[in-house]
């Protein structure tokens, strides 16, 4: 049984990738507002995901206002799906015990 992807296993990064899996693109403010992390913390997580190739960052301008969009990459999507499969495998190895047996 292969090891869980530690990069994805971290709770904040897992949520970032899961949110990105549900949309085509989003920006820093949406992730910040939804997750409630600090800017520094969120930047750090996204940076790690981008370096791993799981998140694509696109920078542009809306008029004069800089705009940064994040998208999950096909590699990131595949890694996320594999992560959930591995987690299911682990759970199936150790099913929850019945309350009566405790």
């Amino acid at each position: 049984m292969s090891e869980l992807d530690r990069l994805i296993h971290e709770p904040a990064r897992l949520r970032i990738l899961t949110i990105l899996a549900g949309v085509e693109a989003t920006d820093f403010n949406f992730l910040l507002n939804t997750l409630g992390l600090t800017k520094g913390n969120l930047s750090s997580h996204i940076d790690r995901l981008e370096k791993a190739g799981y998140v694509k960052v696109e920078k542009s301008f809306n008029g004069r206002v800089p705009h940064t969009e994040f998208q999950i990459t096909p590699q990131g999507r595949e890694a996320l799906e594999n992560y959930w499969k591995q987690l299911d495998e682990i759970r199936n190895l150790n099913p929850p015990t019945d309350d009566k047996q405790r």
Partner: protein
Amino acid sequence: MQKKNNPIADPHEIIQWTRRYARSRTIYFLVQWCLIVFVICIIGLVASLTQQAYMAGNKVLFYTSVMFLVIAFFFFIWISISQWTAELVWQVTQWFYGKEGFVSPDEKKRSKALPRWVIVLIGLMLVYHILAALLISFRYLSLQYLQPFSAGALVPVLCILIYYQNLGFWAWLWPILYGLHALLLLCGVPISFPAPWYLLNIMIPIFGYGFIAILIGHIYSRYALWKLKSITRQGLEEEYSNEKQNEEQKDEK
């Protein structure tokens, strides 16, 4: 995946609520719709003027109002495609949703433009309504039956647009209510305004049902965002606690 044994939030729920939120941010529809209704009001008023001119035998006024009808048609086209409209919609949307951040709902919506035949259909629907205005002007159609006549084109076109743009559940309320209203009128249910308020028979359904659908979508987006935040933040307590400790340590230094 068993939710009870899952130490973190169910990912399918997170994805689901993210999508629901993204598809329910309807304020930009409201802006577009207000502009469309504004132009339709102008067309309706000019059509009414045309009818009065025709009945009075005033050829100058009649041809002038027909000319204004044509100008209103081209004004509608300009509103639909101009950068000014796009900028206005963007500014209002940012005013409402800017603090929440940007989110683009679906690959299906963004990667594929509307098919050409759908755009042609929208144009034909407009011509259909211009035709209705002319029929009313020449008294071939009564104003009180304008709404059912309009529903004949508007309901299928709305359904096609909603399908191709992959909008949320709220969007379907609009053609459903509009079609239901038309059916009730044709069945003789007394829900129409008498003269001289005939124009309200089209104005209230065409604006009211769209407004109701959009408003419900917006309210649902508030609920979806609240739900998304509550699900997503579960299990991040340790993360917040670590951040707080780091900040306290920095303050001490």
